[in-house]
């Protein structure tokens, strides 16, 4: 995974709360078996039905930073929601509250899910509205996002931050514990189920 430190990109406001993953990418777009190419499904219903939807506006076509209302990414566990955001070009999403599974999925894919206060969310929306197309600067090590004169700090858990800044792969980290996993397995009770050999077939 690529190391993430400081970067800049156009910030787009998504002024909605409770954006569930069915809105981020409807189920009909989940049938691909590749890990890329999901950008066409991103907010597909809203992009199709609402001409004024934020990502339909030319100035936000290349947005890389999304500032959204609370309860972003609720519902289905589909990691495709993160892939769709990433494939569209987003590198960071800021919200006062993320659903747990979405936040976890983001961390695995190098998408920053930064938690901000509601007042900072309003201030970021205002800063973007005052100057649409403005670039935001993200400083992951310092946990700071800067839009023009506005500087806002965001929360991200220490472990995810460390992994993202170091560009580390989760599986690789876990496999360093091979001996502990094997020891755990060795004392696993006999009654615990096994799928093989198959019974009841």
């Amino acid at each position: 995974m690529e190391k993430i430190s400081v970067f800049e990109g156009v910030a787009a406001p998504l002024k909605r709360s409770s954006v569930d993953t069915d809105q981020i990418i409807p189920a009909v777009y989940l049938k691909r078996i590749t890990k890329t190419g999901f950008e066409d499904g991103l907010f597909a219903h809203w992009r199709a039905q609402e001409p004024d939807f934020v990502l339909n506006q030319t100035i936000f076509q290349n947005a890389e930073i999304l500032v959204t209302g609370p309860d972003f990414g609720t519902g289905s566990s589909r990691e495709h929601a993160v892939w769709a955001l990433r494939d569209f070009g987003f590198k960071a999403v800021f919200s006062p509250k993320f659903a747990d599974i979405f936040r976890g999925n983001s961390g695995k894919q190098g998408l920053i899910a930064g938690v901000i206060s509601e007042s900072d969310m309003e201030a970021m929306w205002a800063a973007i509205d005052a100057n649409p197309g403005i670039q935001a600067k993200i400083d992951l090590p310092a946990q700071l996002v800067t839009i023009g004169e506005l500087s806002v700090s965001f929360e991200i858990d220490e472990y995810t931050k460390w992994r993202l800044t170091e560009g580390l792969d989760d599986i690789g980290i876990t496999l360093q514990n091979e001996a502990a996993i094997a020891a755990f397995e060795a004392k696993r009770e006999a009654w615990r189920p096994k799928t093989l050999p198959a019974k009841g077939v």
Partner: protein
Amino acid sequence: MSNKPITLAEKLWRDHLVVKGENGAPDLIYIDLHLIHEVTSPQAFDGLRLAGRELRRKDLTIATEDHNTPTQDIHLPIADLTSRTQVQALRDNTAEFGVRIHSLGDKNQGIVHVVGPQLGLTMPGLTIVCGDSHTSTHGAFGSLGIGIGTSEVEHVMATQTLPLAPFKTMAINVEGTLRPGVSAKDIILAVIAKITASGGQGYVLEYRGSAIRSLSMEGRMTICNMSIEAGARAGMVAPDQITFDYLEGRPHAPTGAEWEAAVQYWKTLQTDEGAVFDAEIFIDADKLDPFVTWGTNPGQGVSLMDSVPDPSSISDSSERAAAERALEYMDLRPGTKMKDIPVNTVFLGSCTNARIEDLRAAAAVVKGRKKADGVRMMVVPGSAMVRLQAEAEGLDKVFKDFGAEWRFAGCSMCLGMNPDQLGVGERAASTSNRNFEGRQGKGARTHLVSPVVAAATAVRGTLSAPSDLEA
């Protein structure tokens, strides 16, 4: 080891801890059972291949096809090319990695969360994961069922563990006796309406109290299933004799001395006297009505006896805005009686409410009656086995005589990945779990209901309780 009283969730965590995380790192937790399906696994298998990694425990892994499989003409090749490709990818991947699979047409095929319990693979005291948020269903057995994303699916395939941050715990106390016509679905819809669709975030919920204890395993599964709709990572019910009776004799349930050892351990899986939950709520089962949603998230629900709420009465500004937006999408006006809302479609199915007990309850309501004109009712059993059992009991005939469509098993119209979708502007009473915008089809409107409310609604054509029907 300290003797501090701890909760059920904390016991499961303790008993699956492989490595304790230090300096802010998550704990490494062992996974007992990994369920997979066609939608969230292909990229995980690809990841293993690219990294040259093995699937560590194929004997703790099982696959089924459910999300985008058709529910009619299942003997034919899947018509939709992308769905067919995805299902074929699962068949190829499971063959290559030696994973057991129950494909369309197999008697053990069905919705992954119905298949695990019916095979006896789901049992108390396990950690169970699946690339599906409704994995919380399995918590009904006193196990920790966690929905995960595809990267985590790959992680479990490669290591049989997951790095997880500890959860907080919340007790959901439901005391009393449900009135006739009120069921497990109404309890969970009332819970979510009370704590909101994000109120469970960061928590494992433990459902407790006399109303929960008296529920069957099917009812407990319905409740745990929708824990994620309150934002929780998991939901649980402590195992008891009802759990053991459900499990005993199932294909993968332990036998002989192993059964005895298991039950002895399972009986310890209770929250200790004096253990403290991080949060606690209370629901009075005696006073509960059938519940139904009016909005576009599962927390936007009311008693079926009530009316569509007025957003201007909501004090929180973002909740008020969400309610206004929901009413616009749902094409509803404040003050309209819920029972005056007409539907085009009734969907009886999904991992929430498509087990045999759900089908029996709905069949008892529609038996000898005729479906309302202009209403379409689809009955989709949760698994091929449930379908077979229902047919053995003659339930298929009851539904067909009533005018409903009798389908093959799968996720179906719960999420409309297969051809079972609602059209733009269509309105459904659905026994599924999500009333999100567009969930059951682009522009479609969903009211979440229990199986008996679904059945009564199909009789009258408007949202109804069984008590609204003439004798």
